[in-house]
């Protein structure tokens, strides 16, 4: 019986190809849009959180200037950091595991005919630990190289790729401005940061090498450090702030001219942002769902005249109101189901493609899928069913005469 009804509905759907396909299209668009948007949004959120986990959430950064708290951003008048600040932090503050002072400059790296503009960072071996960044090949700096300021470097994977292609870079000499230095290692790829920056576009050299041979000064642009397991990041941060105020002789009442950036803070800011983004995408998707719904509504209302006549014919040859309605309901359900399933397939397909394109993980969200499906289904059924209900309550002859 129900099978028969479904067969009849399919026949009816095939008979009105244009109307059916427009209705289905409306549902497909709505469902697919919601699924795509939400899936991508969730993927991006996950990406950000895992990126930050990769950064190490127990990492603190000390930088000169006021950071991104004030509207002025980094104040150029703030004095740079000193290598001794790093030593002081390492020696005087408990709960600090590794301290990596860094100094950076953008310049050309040259190998043979290849040259590539990159960031050269001088630091020490603590950097690998703090940034949670292992080597793919080669080795770290030796103590001798660090203290002597030897001409050695470790390449980020982007730089390695750009300069050497598939060749083995270990032992090769590359030129950084006037400094010719030997490649002793290659870093694991970290990929893009959440800000869209390529973290692998970097060359590491011993800090002393950088100071003497590249920058020509002692200035430090940032100190990276790890907080020991079991210590409160917040407490360590406060202690560092006190120590630095003391060292930089900041009067009580004056503002800091440096900042300690806590990754935890970044985590919450970024997840907040991506959550907002997801909400925004969901809103866009909801609009498309609505548009799809309005499309379905239109089709159904436009075809109401024809349907009313059809209902009149059915009533005239002996169909009961109930039978006509069940038939139209089955038809609307079948139509919505077809559209919904196509929408899910299409939406997941687009989402999978989009997530590959945007390099975010593909996160399937069954709840949203179900909601989009039910909503479009409801719209399809509602607007398929209600005009039919009105028509079926007419006298057969009035339904037949309907214009």
């Amino acid at each position, binding site marked *: 019986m129900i099978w028969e009804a479904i067969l009849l509905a399919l026949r009816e759907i095939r*008979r009105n190809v244009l109307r059916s396909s427009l209705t289905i299209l409306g549902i497909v668009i709505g469902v697919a849009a919601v699924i795509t948007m939400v899936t991508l949004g969730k993927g991006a959120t996950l990406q950000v959180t895992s990126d930050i986990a990769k950064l190490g959430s127990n990492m603190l950064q000390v930088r000169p200037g006021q950071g991104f708290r004030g509207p002025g951003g980094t104040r150029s008048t703030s004095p740079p950091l000193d290598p001794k600040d790093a030593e002081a932090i390492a020696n005087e503050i408990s709960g600090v595991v590794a301290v990596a002072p860094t100094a950076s400059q953008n310049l050309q790296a040259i190998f043979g005919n290849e040259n590539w503009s990159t960031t050269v960072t001088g630091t020490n071996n603590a950097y690998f630990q703090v940034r949670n960044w292992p080597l793919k090949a080669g080795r770290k700096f030796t103590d001798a190289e660090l203290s002597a300021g030897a001409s050695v470097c470790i390449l980020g994977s982007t730089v390695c790729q750009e300069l050497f292609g598939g060749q083995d870079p270990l032992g090769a000499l590359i030129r950084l401005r006037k400094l010719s230095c030997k490649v002793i290692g290659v870093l694991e790829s970290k990929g893009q940061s959440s800000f869209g920056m390529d973290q692998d576009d970097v060359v590491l050299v011993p800090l002393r090498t950088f100071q003497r041979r590249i920058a020509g000064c002692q200035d430090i642009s940032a100190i990276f450090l790890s907080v020991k397991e079991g210590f409160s990041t917040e407490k360590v941060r406060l202690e560092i702030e006190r120590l630095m105020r003391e060292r930089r002789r900041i009067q009580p009442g004056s503002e800091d001219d440096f900042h300690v950036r806590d990754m935890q803070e970044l985590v919450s800011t970024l997840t907040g942002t991506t959550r907002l983004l997801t909400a925004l995408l969901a809103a866009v998707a909801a609009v498309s769902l609505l548009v799809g719904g309005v499309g379905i509504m239109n089709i159904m209302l436009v075809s109401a005249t024809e349907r009313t006549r059809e209902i*009149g*014919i059915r009533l*005239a*040859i002996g169909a009961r109101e109930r*039978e006509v309605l069940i038939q139209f309901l089955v038809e609307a359900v079948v139509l919505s189901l077809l559209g919904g399933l196509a929408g899910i397939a299409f939406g997941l397909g687009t989402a999978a493609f989009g997530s590959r394109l945007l390099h975010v993980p593909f996160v399937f969200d069954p709840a949203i899928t179900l909601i989009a499906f039910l909503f479009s289904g409801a719209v399809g059924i509602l607007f398929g069913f209600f005009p039919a209900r009105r028509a079926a309550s007419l*006298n057969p002859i009035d339904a037949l005469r309907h214009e």
Partner: protein
Amino acid sequence: MKTNRANPLRPLIEFKQVTRVYGSKQAAVWALAGIDLQIYRGDFVAIMGPSGSGKSTCMNILGCLDRPTTGSYLFHGLEVGALSRDQQALLRRHYLGFVFQGFNLLNRTSALENVELPLIYRRISAKERRRRSQWALELVGLRGWERHTPSELSGGQQQRVAIARAMVTNPLVLLADEPTGNLDTARSQQIMELLCTLNRERGLTIVMVTHEPDIAAYAQRIIRFRDGLIEADGH
């Protein structure tokens, strides 16, 4: 449904002072102005009259597609006005076959499927539906046109599909509003022969509206309408 088949003397269809008024107040049109009418089982009745005299209105009420404004319509002794919508639908389904003046076929639907339609509501299996519909289409000379949709058929062919649809259920009463209006003379005569045969051999009761005297001549009884009233009723 309780029907009184036992008494052949009782009319199958009885109108008592049936009126049908369209509109209201000053704009009121009395399409039927008080009709008394009795039709017996096995009758073959032709309704004639000028256009606008209320023939179609009368047929619609006979076919339970419309209700009288006042008066009573008894079918098999049953007061049709007192029946629920569903009961009226069942009456149409089981006892009546209707051929509309404007055919009223489903668009984009093959002739065969159009003819099948009434059988669907009778819960008849797909195979049996097909067999019976093919038989009905053959009866009206449309063998080979089963797959064609109304837009691919001439007016005459559509009319014959409409007749086949009314016949396919083997109704007790066939109500036909100008069933030969779109047919050429030869076709008209063929259809009338068919109706006569069904009337004679199966006792099919036929009420038919027509303009043409030679078509009306096939009937045993001719009722003439004028201005919503019966002007003449004779054999």
